[in-house]
């Protein structure tokens, strides 16, 4: 069956859809951020250039803030702007606005800040290897099942895995427009963002009682986000609003790509130390110790939430009798890391899935067989003691093995590699992702949605969740319309605006379809029940005077979903999405280079609402993960830093493998989370394929020719 077409495609293809930089109200000033260029120390003096009329510029610093200089986050430790203390490169010192972009750029380039430098830690490994850099509380997750263990034949193996920063690289840079209406003392923010209500709180924080009201609306088009527009927009909106408030004119800040790369949030680098015991007869892992650490950067902000998800995904899809997991945040003098598709899970899954293959190699058995022996099956428990309700992990595993012909290729490639200089490799990995906020998060979010039925027969959906490319606004209308059964063009999602839209929570955590969509569907059912119609269109025609009508619904958690935040025991996520992946590579030993040949994906995301939109999410997420696996890297150690996309190797069309995607168990009633899971599992499949092809064990991403070369030269195959 053909999938419904996306509602936003035509406007985007013809250039009619407005992205943030396409908004230019009259008299808008251009804004720029001046940020710190040392890693740690003090600002001693700021010198403005001569030859400019300083009165033409609007300049704000932390001393201009009428409210609180704290960006609202799970941990409130990051200032919007810094005064004289420098904690990391890229801390905003000044916001400057001017009517002319060229004059402003020229002025900014000559602003000179005098510093006194102090020692700093900017190297990821130095930060993660040393416990002295830990900040925040250690998280623990422990589990012991009653099964008795046979310890007579066992192998104990320890391995440490590292992953690097990753840049979201949304094609539309961060941007924000602030308009201050003096008459009604209202600050209106328009921007490219994932979480309009977070931005509202941020602007209320920085402006305090200086304004009466803050309204946040997203731009019509949001040019990609991937987590990158979850928390940085809070900071950007705050400073843009402060400039607009001071200038009494609209101010628009659109970051240059260079600034966007340098000062916005990235994926957390990780260090995952796994130490497990496996029975050499039964090939069952009986005990596992995991030390999971991530580099938060300069401030904690939302990192504890990433850490939490990380430890709850650390044992992957495996059933291990005794689990001891410790999670720690580390501090470095680099920009604070933030949300990025996967949110702590890709790092965890890279480690456990790589570990499994190394273990299989030590035991001399097939990586597929070792997985079969250890995966969570119906009736087993996650480390949080959450019960596994279905055997779907095994279904994913069996299906991927079949369509990729994994076992046969493992034999064929091993034989091929004996006789050929160029090697062939095949690697497998499994993955999971818990949908929605962790633990009690969804209960606390208390999401609300609204639907209006107009007398024109139009049905308008009001949710705070944005359309950032994932296809949510089309898919949500399909969910509502699966009940109301109107012509597709009659049902639409209204652009989120905090003065009109109820707070259905942020556009994060693979929750838009899973939580908000389900809530909307429930509301649509109620509308149908309350109005008692069979044909809504006919009903409206016959009862036109009773419309418009407004309907609202609030999220109700499953009463059985208890979770203890202290012990991390209970239902961590009501539903987990599951996946299996096989990657086929070729390896050119003279170039030390991996070529990605094929990639098979089998996913259980439950019910699929729009097949081609869902596939688009998988393809995009997988390619993002493959980029993280083989090429993407941000060198934060020393100078020069990234100056643009030229220094950051994003996958292009020629780099992608041939891809296959299959969804299983689509007859389920629940549409589970989809956005993030494709990011979680491909990287270890590539690493495992390299191990199979060459015997080279690299436990550090990305798998660049430089790193493979270094490993080969060290003789550490």
């Amino acid at each position, binding site marked *: 069956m*053909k*999938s419904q*077409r*996306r509602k*936003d*495609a*035509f*406007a*985007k*293809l*013809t*250039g009619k*859809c*407005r*992205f943030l*930089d*396409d908004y230019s109200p009259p008299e808008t000033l251009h804004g720029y951020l001046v940020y710190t260029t040392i890693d740690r120390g003090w600002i001693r003096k700021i010198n403005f250039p001569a030859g400019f009329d300083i009165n033409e510029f609007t300049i704000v610093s932390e001393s201009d803030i009428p409210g609180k200089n704290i960006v609202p986050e799970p941990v409130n430790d990051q200032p919007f702007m810094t005064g004289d203390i420098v904690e990391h490169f890229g801390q905003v010192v000044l916001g400057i606005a001017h009517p002319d972009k060229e004059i402003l750029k020229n002025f900014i380039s000559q602003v000179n800040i005098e510093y006194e430098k102090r020692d700093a830690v900017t190297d990821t490994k130095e930060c993660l290897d040393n416990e002295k850099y830990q900040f925040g509380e250690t998280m623990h997750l422990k589990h012991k099942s009653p099964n008795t263990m046979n310890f007579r034949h066992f192998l104990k193996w320890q391995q440490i895995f590292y992953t690097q920063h990753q840049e*979201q*690289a*949304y*094609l*539309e*840079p961060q941007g924000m427009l602030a308009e201050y209406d003096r008459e009604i003392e209202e600050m209106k923010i328009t921007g490219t963002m994932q979480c309009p209500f977070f931005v509202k709180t941020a602007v209320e924080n920085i402006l305090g009682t200086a304004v009466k009201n803050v309204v946040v609306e997203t731009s019509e*088009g*949001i*040019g*990609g*986000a*991937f987590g990158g527009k979850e928390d940085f927009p809070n900071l950007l909106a705050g400073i843009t609003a402060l400039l607009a408030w001071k200038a009494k004119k609209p101010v628009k800040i659109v970051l*240059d*790509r260079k600034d966007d790369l340098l000062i916005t949030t990235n994926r957390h680098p990780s260090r995952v130390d796994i130490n497990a015991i496996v029975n050499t007869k039964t090939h069952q892992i009986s005990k596992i110790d995991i030390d999971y650490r991530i580099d938060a950067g300069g401030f904690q902000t939302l990192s504890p939430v990433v850490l939490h998800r990380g430890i709850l995904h650390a044992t992957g899809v495996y059933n291990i009798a005794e689990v001891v997991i410790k999670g720690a945040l580390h501090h470095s003098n680099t920009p604070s890391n933030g949300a990025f598709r996967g949110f702590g899970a890709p790092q965890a899954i890279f480690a456990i899935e790589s570990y499994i293959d190394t273990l299989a190699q030590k035991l001399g058995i097939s990586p597929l067989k070792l997985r079969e022996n250890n995966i969570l099956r119906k009736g087993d428990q996650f480390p949080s003691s959450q019960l596994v309700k279905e055997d779907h992990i095994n279904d994913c595993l069996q299906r991927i093995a079949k369509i990729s012909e994994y076992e046969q290729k493992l034999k064929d490639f091993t034989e091929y590699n004996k006789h050929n200089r160029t090697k062939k490799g095949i690697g497998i990995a499994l993955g999971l992702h818990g949908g929605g906020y962790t633990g009690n998060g969804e209960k606390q979010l208390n999401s609300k949605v609204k639907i209006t039925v107009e007398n024109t027969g139009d049905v308008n959906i009001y949710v705070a969740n944005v359309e*950032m*490319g*994932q*296809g949510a606004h089309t898919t949500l209308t399909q969910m509502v319309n699966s009940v109301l059964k109107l012509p597709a063009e009659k049902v639409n999602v209204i652009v989120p605006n905090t003065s009109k839209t109820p707070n259905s929570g942020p556009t994060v955590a693979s929750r838009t379809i899973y939580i908000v969509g389900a809530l909307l569907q429930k509301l649509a059912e109620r509308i149908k029940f309350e109005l008692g119609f069979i044909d809504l269109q006919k009903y409206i025609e016959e009862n036109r005077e009773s419309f418009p009508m407004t309907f609202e619904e609030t999220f109700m958690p499953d009463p059985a979903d208890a979770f203890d935040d202290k012990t991390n025991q209970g239902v961590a996520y009501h539903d987990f999405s599951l996946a299996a992946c096989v990657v086929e590579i070729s390896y050119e030993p003279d170039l030390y280079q991996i070529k990605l040949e094929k990639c098979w994906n089998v996913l259980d995301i439950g019910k699929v609402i*729009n097949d*081609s*939109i869902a*596939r*688009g999410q998988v*393809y*995009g*997420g*997988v*390619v*993002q993960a493959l980029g993280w696996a083989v090429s993407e890297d941000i060198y934060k150690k020393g100078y020069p830093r990234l100056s*643009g*996309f*030229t220094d950051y190797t*994003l*996958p*292009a*069309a*020629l780099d*992608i493998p041939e*891809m296959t995607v299959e969804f299983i168990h689509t007859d389920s009633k629940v549409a589970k989370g989809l956005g993030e899971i494709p990011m979680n599992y491909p990287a270890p499949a590539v690493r495992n394929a390299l191990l199979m092809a060459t015997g080279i064990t690299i436990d550090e991403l990305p798998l660049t020719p430089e790193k493979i070369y270094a490993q080969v030269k060290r003789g550490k195959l």
Partner: protein
Amino acid sequence: MIISFKLNNEAVTITTDPMRRLLDVLREDMKMKSVKESCGEGECGACTVMLGNKPVTSCLVNIAQVEGKEVLTAEAISETPIGKLLIDCFEETNAVQCGFCFTGFLVSCWHYLTTNPVDDVDAIKHAISGNICRCTGYVKIIEAMQLACRRINEGAIS
């Protein structure tokens, strides 16, 4: 400096700094908002336009280089028969995601379809290798292009 060129089939003459980027002139002076700035250094292709018979990244072209030439942006390309067919294929395959890069893709893809519309995955990959997309993993863009090639070769455009 006075510069004359053809923009979307109409003659234009402007007086401006010859070193300004074609990208800025198109967006700011000509209000051609389909032309997007993303990287500003010719890496990503979001600002791709046709200059004469070639797709170029307009962030790397100075307006002086455009004197006497023809520029086509997605605004005009989307109105051409092949542009319309291509848009329909992008819509049918649900290839568009955030869409920020897609007006650039539209130009590169249109150039391929108007010069040599061969239904060949490698050739299509080469044709779009100067355009970066972070959402789609390119799979559906290639799928849409193959569909467009087949339709053109079946005589969809007379």
